[in-house]
């Protein structure tokens, strides 16, 4: 492993250990994506030979790619950690889906609202998440230990100064701390590390022939028969892969021939668009990530 990846790894392990030493009831978000895979790997390294002393939490909207769910169950079993899965069943019963609501309201109900329900039910005071500062510019302003007031709200003006490697995790009841061990990693670092450490990832990141349709200038994969096709529309098969993974109707594929990590690394380094470009939910409105974060989104 190159020197700078080794130092990123050492820093992340330090952050994870610090978080667990300071928390009463910690939990790690597990979204099945490449960043979660790296974070989980780092947690297992941090506590080896012990199993990491906290559960994994997945917010399942029921609209994830099928491959993601199979992968999640396999990895959780291998890690020996407890996997908690939460779905906002009330909203499902009300008929909420990516096709019945716009992406902003859908995300609020199925992800943000569901996350808050799961955190409140579990009584978690510290939540590890895989967000990185290079993803988006309001995230570039995020602390490593990010303070959330009661109701899980993020107020950029209430964030505590964070100097050196000294983190303040003290809170009153109802408040919580979100910790981002991958803050200083870039997308290219994540891929290089996955390659160096041989970390398993979902096959959706690799190019393969997949059934897709064109929506708003982007390729959307038809992962199951819940996808409402237009009259006479037939999905076409294209060689595509995903740079980021979320709910399949809201995650655009890119045309690519990259079938190995090395090819992905190469493609990432030459990329002219950011990875979140395929996330339809980020483009809802100006400063939409900042707004979602304030409401409690990761």
């Amino acid at each position, binding site marked *: 492993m190159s020197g700078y990846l080794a130092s990123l790894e050492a820093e992340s392990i330090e952050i994870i250990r610090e978080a667990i030493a300071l928390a009463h009831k910690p939990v790690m978000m597990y979204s099945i994506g490449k960043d979660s895979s790296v974070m989980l790997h780092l947690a297992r390294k941090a506590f*080896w030979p012990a199993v990491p002393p906290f559960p994994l939490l997945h917010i399942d909207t029921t609209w994830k790619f099928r491959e993601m769910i199979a992968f999640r169950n396999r990895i959780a079993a291998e890690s020996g950690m407890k996997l908690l899965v939460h779905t906002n069943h009330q909203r499902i019963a009300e008929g909420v889906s990516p096709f019945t609501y716009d992406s902003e309201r859908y995300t609020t109900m199925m992800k943000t609202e569901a996350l808050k329900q799961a955190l409140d039910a579990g009584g978690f005071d510290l939540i590890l998440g895989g967000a990185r500062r290079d993803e988006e510019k309001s995230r570039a302003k995020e602390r490593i230990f990010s303070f959330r007031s009661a109701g899980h709200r993020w107020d*950029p003006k209430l964030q505590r*100064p964070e*100097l050196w490697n000294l983190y303040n995790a003290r*809170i009153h009841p109802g408040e919580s701390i979100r910790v981002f061990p991958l803050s200083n990693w870039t997308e290219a670092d994540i891929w290089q590390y996955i390659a160096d450490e041989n970390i398993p990832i979902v096959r959706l990141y690799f190019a393969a022939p997949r059934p897709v349709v064109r929506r708003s200038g982007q390729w959307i994969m038809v992962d199951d028969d819940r996808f409402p096709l237009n009259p006479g529309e037939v999905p076409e098969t294209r060689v595509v892969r995903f740079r980021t993974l979320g709910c399949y109707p809201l995650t655009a594929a890119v045309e690519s021939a990259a079938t190995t990590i090395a090819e992905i690394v190469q493609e990432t380094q030459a990329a002219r668009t950011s990875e979140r470009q395929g996330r339809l939910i980020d483009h809802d409105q100006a400063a939409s990530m900042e707004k979602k974060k304030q409401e409690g989104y990761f």
Partner: protein
Amino acid sequence: MKDTLRFITCGSVDDGKSTLIGRLLWESKQVFEDHLSALQKDSMRYGTQGEAVDLALLVDGLQAEREQSITIDVAYRFFATPRRRFVVADTPGHEQYTRNMATGASTSELAVLVVNASKGLQTQTHRHARIVALLGIRHLIMAVNKMDLVDWNEAIFAQIVQEFQPLVSKLGFESFQPIPVSALVGDNITAHSSAVPWYAGPALLGFLEEIDVTPRANDLRFRMAVQFVNRPTHDFRGYCGRIASGEVKVGDRLRVVPGGMETKVRSIVAWQTELPAAAVGDSITLCLENEVDISRGSILACASDPSELSDQFEARVLCLSEHPLVAGRSYLMNLHTCQAVATITSIKHQVDVKTGTHLAARSLNMNDIGVVNLSTDRPVPFETYDRCRRLGSFILVDRLTNNTVGAGMIDFALRRAANIHWQAVDINKSVRARQKLQKPMCLWFTGLSASGKSTIANHLEKRMFAAGRHTYMLDGDNVRHGLNRDLGFSEADRVENIRRVTEVARLLVDAGLVVIVSFISPYRAERELARSRFEPGEFIEVFVDTPLEECERRDPKGLYAKARRGELVNFTGIDSDYEPPESPEIHLETVTQSIEQCVDHILFALEQGNAK
């Protein structure tokens, strides 16, 4: 192999720091097409550059920042060239956000101090230079920006550099490189600009790629603060941490601080393997030969040259809070992985950030830097900041709000602690208490002026005296005529006032007495500090709860009327805060209870033994 340079951009507001970073990201091809289209949209809406794209909007990530065209919080940006990887902390220029600038500086190895050529050196230029030096940054680039606005006038550039030069050696920078640039246009950023034939030095990006910031050889031996004790099974016990200095090998002899026990490294555990050795910066797990008492906050150090231990320090402190740091107040201190209670025992001086001169100060306000003496509630292991940033830096946390209110760097340990020992005596508190047939305690009355504290306390003492108790009353006004004659009513003086009274009350309780303290004592922090000086159950907080309107109506000494007329300043309830107790042992409501009922209430609660 590529390495990483962590640097900070700083300087006064409007000198173009965010534009400079936007330019660096742009030139190093870090701006993606979708970011660019968002930038074009944002530029039309918030931009300050007319029709052209406003590169500053690439980094000002918060809505409030884009609307006001200023940077509020520190942002971390990443870019790379074929030679080096960069992490840049983009920090605010406004004085009110100086603390965010210090946050960015604490993890940087180099500072790019931006100066606006058309305005010259500002107070913030000096302030930021001093703060980056204070935080141990040894390499400084001065980017004299907006040179296009002064027609690339060589004399203007030379004058700014000359004016700043004396500060370079005074603040101890090892390297100083002034560069004339235009971040807006891109001159002297990646390549030497033809607009500046008189400048023969490097372009900014080229210089950042080249400069060697490796610290001077540091001879500090192995040290690691223990973060976490890993005990999954009975036969495995590993000490986790990140190495702060030196290196460690299997078989090395280590000493545990505090404790002083010696042990040996049995193995260095890493993921699914063991390592023969590890060095500074590595996150590791150590297994040791013998079972010794080691917990989070201990330092494992080279046995022949271990870390020091002290409970008295001199330190440089930066105030990060709107609430001032005052002498006499205690805070939670996070020093590496160790947590202690630290009290600022005195503020030696405040540093004038513009001139560097020392100013007398009783408190440090937000963004002030001062040199203070600190005492901790127990000896803690440490290194001085100059020797090891990681083991010599600390933060101060407010005990009630949990906010991070100060950041500090240990300069040295004061030797006093080691030399003054508590004198053990044979006739002690419990012996004296038995002789008086009573349980010594401190009844602490708190409430607004004219709430009825002294009146109730006086009646209570008479009743207790009549019942054969040995009592003593300390009244706020009376003590201010003698012991505390030198103190006024500023926050710093109020804190000292309470500290002295607490110590006197403690001596009297030690003498076996029931001490009745009647003080406004408006701040929770001081009442909690007072409580912490007594044994559990010895401190009874009595809240004399009378609404402000009622106190003002009574006003027996005419003080409220004076305060309302502006003739008295810092008067509690009028222009100074009163923080009511959250869970006092005894809560009296004088609007519904008479004086005798209040006294009965107290005596009954004391008899019950549970004073709730």
